[in-house]
């Protein structure tokens, strides 16, 4: 070996060894201390949500002077990747706010990032009082978190536009289509409805609101059932609204903006958006922007905001984190949540304040009758949701962009899901 080659080899080895030594995890021996600092990750530390977190954490720290809770805020768009990266490196926060538990929780639970909480939950009233939607926090028969919020979708409508079009608030799918048509036919540029029409998972969920609402099961006996006549009929309603009476290419922000600005008369959204409407809509419009239950036989529902614990907590930190879960899921905390966010919660009876106003009563009505748009027992779908959303999204885009018969597209969708090796 020449001297030059030897020097190169030594240099390369030094760089490699140096970098590996520098990046190797240090053995962490926790110091014995009475004070415990919990870390909590969330994407929701803003606006009304920030008020709620501040309220809950302030009261918790006052009641537990030796425990502090530090919020780690990450933008929603980066939230999943940030927590995943942290967890792979073993540096995830102690308490993890789980977004869209139906789809995110399985991956984190399977990877061993989350602590099983069955023993803890047995000491609480969650198993007794929580709705069936708590099963969204389960994976493979084990509970990995506590659900904070489940809700029914609401119909948001612009009363002035509906009145101008000479129609009332729709209560059936047929009335919904007729009302959307009537507004779109007005002389102005307004649309009757607004859907999410982008490439995100929201696109698929928006359409599934219609199938659940119209009692159409796209999973039957463990197989895909999109070609079922009921599913075809439900998606035909969505297709007609999306193709004829909605602006196109609207992501969820543009859809909401179209409603807020008075460019679309109706949309279906989660109830938490009502507070935003009240806080940000043009003062000249805000009195016209109202909510009702969705015009379906079944109230389509969803889950949001679950809390889980890191699988690597030591005994003391785990005990402190469980205390925090007790506090967050208390009647007091969730009642405050309901008031500030104008949303129902998973604890029964906490949304009573919403019934006091006719404007917000439909939020509670929709919640009480709600059925999840994705059944948490569909573990195959939950396990590979990204692929499901990609394949289903392609078919739904075809419904909006082509003139092919709905049934033909949906028969192909059933086949494509099978071909992709997906099982519900």
């Amino acid at each position, binding site marked *: 070996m020449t001297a030059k080659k030897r020097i190169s080899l030594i240099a390369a080895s*030094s760089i*490699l060894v140096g970098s590996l030594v*520098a*990046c190797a995890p240090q053995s962490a021996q926790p110091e014995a201390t009475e004070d415990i600092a919990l870390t909590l990750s969330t994407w929701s530390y803003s606006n009304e949500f920030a008020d709620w977190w501040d309220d809950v954490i302030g009261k918790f720290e006052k009641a537990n002077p030796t425990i502090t809770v530090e919020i780690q805020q990450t933008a929603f768009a980066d939230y999943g990747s940030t927590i995943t990266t942290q967890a792979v490196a073993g540096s995830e926060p102690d308490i993890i706010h789980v977004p869209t538990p139906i789809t995110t929780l399985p991956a984190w639970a399977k990877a061993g990032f989350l602590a099983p909480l069955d023993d803890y939950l047995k000491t609480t009233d969650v198993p007794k009082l929580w709705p069936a939607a708590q099963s969204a926090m389960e994976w493979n028969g084990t509970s990995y978190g506590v659900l904070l919020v489940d809700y029914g979708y609401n119909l948001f409508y612009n009363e002035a536009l509906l009145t101008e079009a000479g129609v009332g608030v729709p209560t059936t799918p047929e009335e919904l289509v007729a009302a959307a048509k009537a507004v779109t036919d007005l002389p102005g540029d307004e649309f009757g409805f607004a859907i999410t029409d982008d490439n995100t998972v929201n696109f698929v969920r928006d359409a599934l609101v219609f199938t659940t609402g119209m009692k159409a099961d796209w999973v039957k006996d463990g197989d895909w059932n999109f070609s079922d006549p009921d599913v075809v009929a439900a998606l035909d309603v969505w297709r007609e609204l999306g193709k004829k009476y909605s602006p196109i*290419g*609207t992501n969820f922000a543009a859809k909401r903006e179209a409603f807020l600005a008075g460019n679309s008369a109706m949309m279906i959204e989660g109830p938490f958006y009502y507070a935003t409407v009240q806080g940000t809509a043009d003062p000249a419009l805000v009195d016209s922007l109202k909510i009702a239950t969705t015009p379906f036989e079944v109230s389509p529902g969803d889950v949001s905001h679950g809390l889980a614990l890191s699988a690597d907590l030591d005994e003391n930190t785990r005990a402190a984190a469980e205390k925090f879960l007790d506090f967050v899921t208390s009647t007091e905390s969730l009642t405050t949540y309901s008031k500030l966010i104008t949303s129902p919660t998973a604890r029964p009876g906490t949304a009573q304040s919403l019934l006091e106003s006719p404007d917000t009563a439909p939020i509670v009505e929709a919640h009480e009758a709600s059925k999840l748009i994705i059944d948490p027992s569909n573990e195959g779908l939950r396990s590979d949701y990204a692929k499901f959303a990609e394949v289903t999204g392609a078919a739904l*885009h075809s419904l909006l*962009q082509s003139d092919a018969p709905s049934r033909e597209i949906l028969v192909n969708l059933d086949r494509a899901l099978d071909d992709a090796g997906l099982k519900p």
Partner: protein
Amino acid sequence: MTTSDTLTRVRGLHTGDRGPRAPRKRAPRRSRITAAAYIAPSMIAVGGSLVFALVLLVGMSLRDVSLGRLSAIFAAPLTLTNYVEVLGDPATWRSFLVSLIYTVGSTLLPFIGGLMIALLLNQRMPGQRLLRTLALVPWAVPSVTATVAFVWMMQPTYGVWNYLLRSVGLIDTDVNWFGDPNLALLAVIIPTSWKAIPFFTLMLLAGLQSLSREQYEAAEVDGAGRLARFRWITLPGLAPFILVALLFSAMHSFREFDFIYASTQGGPDGATETAAVRIYNQAFESFDLGNAATLGIVTFVLVAVLVALLFRRLNKGSLEGFL
């Protein structure tokens, strides 16, 4: 001297016909050690982090574990399963094809635009300095801001693009730029190209200013027209600048993520899923880090081979074949 003689002589200046090279003078040993000592800390920091990341990626790609703690991933047995899966997956090759089209499109379009602007700004005119500064503005706009602006401008119903196209009668129904699988790739190439134009402008303007006026005067005396002067003097003179700019821009475009993910997330139906976006989707949408790491390694090797080939060509100094 004929026009042909002049042009041949001029071409020789730019095509590697340099004659015998003078022997290089070696710096004193002490100077070399001092220089090495100065650059060692940054080399160790940058090189170390790169090597560590690469070692980590290779290690993950050789384990059949989708997601887990690093300790669990590295405790798994070595296997080539991920490579078999990734290389056998048609979606991998589709993402490379999308990457290729995206890279070519978002390199050639700004090159043409940048060349035209550079030629314009190389002329003496009033307000030349101001125009040169303005030409750099797209470069200064943060990617996220540019993405948001383009997403709104190209919004099918409310965006200004479709409004303008409707106004001049080019379309009668709204075009769904980011939602139509046939148009989405073009739609993401446009903003990337817009942002890359100043880079080409700057590089090529620097190249134009390094060209000798005497060559143009000699060619003019010999009766060469504007087109001939551009073909035989400007283009060969700019060749090194063009190649370096194309190479850098292509490498940047190949790994571009911000514009595409923020506007289409790789959809619809995979139409804009470049290798970079697919790696992200595999890691953080499908939660398959092993697969994502493998795709990352395959992409790295492909790009490294391509860049090595191009640099080899550049180092040989033979640019004749390119222009």
